[in-house]
């Protein structure tokens, strides 16, 4: 993929590799490809890589720069710029398995306090909101915010809905919401401003597992409607329904 990029400091211990292209599946793939290339380069100072929609943040330990100080920072910038140019001109596709992950969601009244707000804003009936919310495959652009939160792309435009003017103090864990052009799931009970239209019984962060998360960047998510009965019977540690996908649907 061809794209312009700039390298910008993000504090005294991180550099942002920012792309001018708008967020897309192709850009997210380039960013993940670049993250793999930086990892493979095993630069001792690099401590974290954080992908986002248009940016890969490279955190580093300033004391591991060679040498410590402005020369070391400049050297790291050059290394990252080279790796980025190479990743952008590469025709490689990202190796590794990708999955379509089905996440059960109950859209019934008790779990959907803001369904009426969504009906009002969109002019759609509840059934159609659920239908439009569940018939998409959402791309996982990145994880972040709180442990296990998925940044998803691909929400039906008819379902876009502004956030609440006053955020709730506490949104229950598993709440599924819409905020602007985004949809997502709150992994923890936190304050939140999204319109809540359902809830999943699935834990999005499972610290007792070696891999504590339900999805990786570039996986796809689909919401599957379930009844309140099925919700009540759901075992939190249950296996997640996932299908290996070769090509991007």
């Amino acid at each position: 993929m061809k794209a312009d990029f700039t390298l910008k400091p993000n504090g005294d211990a991180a550099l942002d590799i920012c792309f001018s292209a708008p967020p897309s599946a192709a850009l997210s793939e380039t960013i993940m490809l670049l993250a793999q290339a930086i990892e493979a380069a095993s630069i001792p100072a690099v401590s974290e890589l954080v992908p986002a929609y248009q940016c890969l943040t490279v955190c580093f330990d300033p004391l591991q720069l060679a040498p410590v100080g402005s020369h070391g920072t400049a050297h790291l910038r050059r290394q990252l710029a080279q790796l980025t140019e190479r990743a952008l001109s590469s025709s490689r596709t990202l190796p590794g398995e990708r999955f379509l992950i089905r996440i059960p969601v109950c859209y019934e009244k008790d779990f959907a306090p803001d369904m009426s707000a969504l009906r009002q804003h969109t002019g759609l009936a509840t059934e159609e909101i659920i239908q439009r919310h569940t018939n998409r495959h959402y791309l996982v652009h990145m994880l972040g915010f709180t442990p296990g939160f998925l940044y998803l792309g691909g929400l039906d435009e008819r379902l876009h809905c502004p956030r609440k003017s006053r955020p709730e103090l506490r949104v229950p864990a598993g709440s599924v919401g819409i905020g602007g052009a985004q949809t997502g799931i709150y992994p923890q009970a936190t304050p939140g401003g999204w319109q809540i239209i359902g809830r999943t019984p699935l834990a999005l962060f499972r610290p007792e597992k070696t891999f504590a998360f339900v999805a990786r960047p570039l996986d796809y998510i689909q919401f599957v409607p379930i009844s309140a009965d099925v919700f009540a019977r759901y075992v939190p540690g249950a296996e997640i329904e996932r299908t290996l996908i070769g090509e991007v649907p």
Partner: protein
Amino acid sequence: MSLRFLRPGLQTSIQDGGRPGMMRWGLCRGGAADTLAMAMANRLLGNPSDHPCIEVTLTGPAIEFTATLSIAVCGAYFDLRLNDKPVANNTVIQVRSGDVLEFGALKSGARGYLALAAEIDLPRSQGSLATHLLAGFGGLEGRALRAGDTLPLRACRRVQVRALPQRYCLDYRARPLIRVVSGADAELFPAEVLNAFYRGEFSVSSQSNRMGIRLSGALLATEGLPQVVSSALCPGTIQVPPGGQPIVSFIEGQTIGGYPRIAHVISADQHRLGQLQANDRLNFERIDTATAHRILQHKLRLLAELEDALQHPHPSPGDTN
């Protein structure tokens, strides 16, 4: 062999060096809010700097020991009493089974670190014993400690009594000097907003916690600021949300943010954020990145020198063996 909490204190939790390297999963490093105070308490006992310890916040606990071991408390200054007799901060304290350590009135700072010449015998979660209070995992059942909680210990040892040399004892009474580097989105802010930020005086809001430190005082004008696309939010980053009250992202902060970043607290000064109390006043001084790295190098060198000073102590009147 254990620690038993007779009184829990306001927010007492097990912390260590946290979980570096997991930001991409939404998991910030976490761990001790003041890594320098934790390191000093641990080094007094001959532990690695980020050995699991007890972080005590504002109102401290009362703890009964059912083991014979050495302990040390660094960071915030509390009136410490062992079996009703005063004991000192920044010193190795010898405890025996049945002894009770009480954290009394807080004199300065916000967070004390109780280091133990022992291992806390609990399972690690995602590679660490640090308690992640927001996500509810790590430490003991992922929560702050409560009255009646017992932490099992193993490998308890005694070390020689020694004190932190005076020049390493940090003073939290003075107004903190918090140095920052220019923000990743600084160019989005008009010059008068940047001036207001660097000339203004802020005070710490009582709504601050391990996730973020909210600043009140000089309100920054945010009209007309463009939207930013969400990207990585590193600890120490100062964002300006609509409303104009800056928030410093802290040790248990969110890993992705979407408000414009006006400045970043330098790595070397982030430990000092852990000692801020509500209503503390502070301002920000802008320096360049090369200077920020030199200051970090200097602080780490001091910690290495401390190691030497502790190996070859000058006898002081307070020392008893």
